[in-house]
């Protein structure tokens, strides 16, 4: 009852000064809208798409750098390079300590469905070992991953994405059908369901691209001589591209992930890596003492600055801007309350307590804050929409791969968490701005105002 009365007073007070009230709402709305936009964009980029396995999946890094020269990580010069030399990767991959381990490389090549009505087109493929799918919880729609012997025998088999399945074969169960990639025939053994981890933690160079469309047994890297892999040779400080040259060299280009389920396993594997490095150092291959790293997914994303300091910077700026808006609202509220102070004085003189006056004013602030927050959510929705249309789609060749649109959509999607955040932020902003003015009005002696009249 009391609340109802206060609410009516608040609404009447807001109406009494429509000009200043709408200014307050507008300032809160623009502050909230900007912050929520920036935080949403950051939130989508900073997620961990496989959080449930964060403490069991590890990226393997060995320090194979020469004593000087080469490119160090600019932020952390002590970090080992993120990729491995082929010799080391294949030796370590053989270890039986991890529950699972997977080597991988990405390469783009031409896909042909062997159907004249569908022209060939380029798609990104992943050369990997069979554990990839179970390790990263990849869901299968039809069929399965290839077998262990397919890996060692270089069987001509392929696992394709649902998107590619739709495009090549018009959907449905197409296990057993044939396609060519980079001139080689492959039989489809599995079709994976929609799987779009963002960021793509296992391929940080292209963290916000659609998932790969094709997966092949790793050993095909040896025979698909048309594929190019970005490799870097530390000794000569130059790039190299073909697998044949890379595999024979001391150049780094290999990615290796392992799954270590128990702490004992982790410890054992660490020792194994350090022993490996020490042996290589004694043999004269490694110049530096063991400096190996096992980075779990969250550490790995952080190391590679996947979320991007630019997005962090934008969040900081947006929050400072919200701070400016709060200061501004505080000033506006002070002015607003001062102009209606005589009314409060009258109310006090007629028996309202300080608490009553303060509560009434606070409620007014909360109503204004909630209004501002609601409109702010709309502002954020418009802002995100603009960013999606202008920024994400301009770089993705729309229509070529429908997954680009899906990626853009999920990177600029405002989920329930963000809506709650917006509500929380606007109430906080309202309270921060309103507490002092409400307290000040409540504290004033009624006589001060009555006298002037």
């Amino acid at each position, binding site marked *: 009852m009391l609340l109802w009365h206060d609410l009516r007073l608040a609404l009447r007070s807001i109406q009494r000064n429509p000009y*200043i009230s709408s*200014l307050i709402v507008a*300032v809160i709305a*623009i*502050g909230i809208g*900007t912050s929520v936009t920036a935080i949403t964009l950051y939130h989508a980029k900073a997620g961990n798409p496989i959080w449930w396995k964060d403490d069991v999946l590890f990226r393997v890094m060995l320090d194979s750098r020469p004593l000087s020269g080469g490119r160090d990580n*600019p*932020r952390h010069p002590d970090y080992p390079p993120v990729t491995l030399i082929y010799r080391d990767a294949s030796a370590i991959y053989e270890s039986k300590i991890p529950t699972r381990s997977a080597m991988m490389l990405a390469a783009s090549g*031409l896909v*042909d469905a062997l159907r004249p009505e569908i*022209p*060939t*087109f*380029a798609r990104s493929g992943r050369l990997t070992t069979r554990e990839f799918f179970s390790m990263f919880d990849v869901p299968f729609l039809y069929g399965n991953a290839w077998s262990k012997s397919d890996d060692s025998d270089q069987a001509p088999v392929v696992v394709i994405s649902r998107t590619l399945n739709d495009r090549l074969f018009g959907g449905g169960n197409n296990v057993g059908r044939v396609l*060519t990639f*980079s*001139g080689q025939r492959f039989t489809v053994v599995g079709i994976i369901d929609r799987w779009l981890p963002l960021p793509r933690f296992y391929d940080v160079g292209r963290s916000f691209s659609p998932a790969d469309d094709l997966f092949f047994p790793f050993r095909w890297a040896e025979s698909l*001589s*048309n594929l*190019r892999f970005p490799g870097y040779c530390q000794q*000569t*400080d*130059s*790039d190299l591209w*073909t697998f*044949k*040259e890379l595999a024979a060299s001391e150049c780094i280009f290999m990615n290796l992930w392992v799954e270590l389920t128990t702490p004992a396993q982790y410890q054992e594997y660490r020792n194994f890596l350090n022993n490996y490095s020490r042996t290589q150092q004694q043999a004269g291959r490694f110049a530096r003492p063991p400096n190996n790293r096992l980075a779990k997914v969250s550490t790995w994303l952080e190391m590679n600055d996947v979320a991007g*300091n*630019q997005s*962090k*910077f*934008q969040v900081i*700026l*947006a929050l*400072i*801007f919200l*701070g*400016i*808006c709060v*200061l*501004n609202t*505080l*000033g*506006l509220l*002070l*002015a607003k309350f*001062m102009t209606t102070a005589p009314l409060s004085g009258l109310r006090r003189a007629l028996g309202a307590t300080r608490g009553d006056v303060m509560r009434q004013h606070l409620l007014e602030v909360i109503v204004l804050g909630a209004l501002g927050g609601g409109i702010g959510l709309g502002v954020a929705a418009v802002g995100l929409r603009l*960013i999606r249309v*202008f*920024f994400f789609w*301009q*770089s993705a060749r729309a229509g070529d791969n429908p997954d680009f649109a899906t990626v853009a959509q999920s990177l600029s999607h405002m989920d329930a968490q963000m809506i709650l955040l917006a509500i929380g932020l606007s109430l906080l902003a309202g309270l921060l701005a309103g507490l*002092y003015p409400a307290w000040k009005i409540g504290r004033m002696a009624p006589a001060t105002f009555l006298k*002037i*009249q």
Partner: protein
Amino acid sequence: MNIKALTRSLWRDPLGPLLLAAQVALSMMIFANVAYVVFVRLDTTSRSTGMDLENIFWISSQGYAADYDQQSTVKFDLEYLNSLPGVVAACATDSLPQTFVGFRTSLSTAPELKGVKSAVLLYQMTEKFVDALGLHLVRGRAPAADAVTPARSSAGPAANLFGPEVVITEVLADRLFGGAEHAIGKPLYFSVNNGRSATVVGVVERMQGSPLFVSGGDFVNHVVFAPAVAAGPHALYLIRTQPGRLDEVMARVWQELRPLQRGRTVNAMETLRNTAWQARASDRNEAIVLAVLSSFVLAVTMLGLFGFASFTVASRTKEIGTRRAIGATRGDILRHFLFENWLITTAGIVAGWGVTLAFALQLNMLLELPRMPMIFLVAAMGLIWAAGLLAALMPALWGSRVAPAVATRAA
């Protein structure tokens, strides 16, 4: 004007002015820093590349057949492209300029990287690249056609990557030899190419291979053109047309080259201008977002200053009337309110100076930018002063129009 009295009157109820000064300080902090970041981003997106971007396009093909032959295909395609009316020149290249993909390596003026060293971007192009890119040759000549190393077959042994004559950019010549005039005829030793040397036969004025990396990377301007047909099966051509004939030539090439199968697919074509534009998209987008954000900041701060001035004018109507009645001119009243506002803005700017520098320090670390030049601080200061005066102008004018007679009325 009585500054002392004015300051004292502001100080009687200090909260409003202090709030405003704090807003001004924060706005200045955002403004100076954002302006700097935007400047850096736009600078990386708008520098001259040294190429005739407007009249160049590229087309690429990918070989897939077992009998695909890179060398004969490139030879065939270049003959066709160079024979077209409207084409100035065409060349083959191993990677596309103005993208972030390129062959980065290092070289030196003495064997085994013992002389003056430099990280460079190396392009393997065929002999007509100077005309095909519209570069300006300041010294020497382009490599001879017979210096172009044929395409290696991926099955064969690791042969030489490129021939013995190279062309470099002027900044690289300055760095290695202390000037373009000293570069011609000098040997360069590469960490690739089996350690063999090549002789500098020409120097071009400028070529920015890749868009600038913000955190260092002069190497994008340290470009070496090495004569070679890059290894297949990816073939990439750069074609420069006569001004105004780009679209016409592109349409014709797409029509005529695509059906020629030769065991490959002609898979993409784009103007170099668009490629360069797309490569800079993320820098440009960030600049746009930041510019929008800082215009919000400025608007809200001006709104605050405007609101405060209106409020003081409105609540002092009677005092203004009294002052007018005892002889103050309209100009006096106008100056009074503008000066009051100026005092607040200036207090904010003084405080803003400190927070701006502190924030800039954090920013340098976060975004790996070089130090912010003082000019951005000075510019932000000037802008905020101007914005503050502008915001207070209307209310101050209202105040100056208050009639002296108001003093005689009861409230």
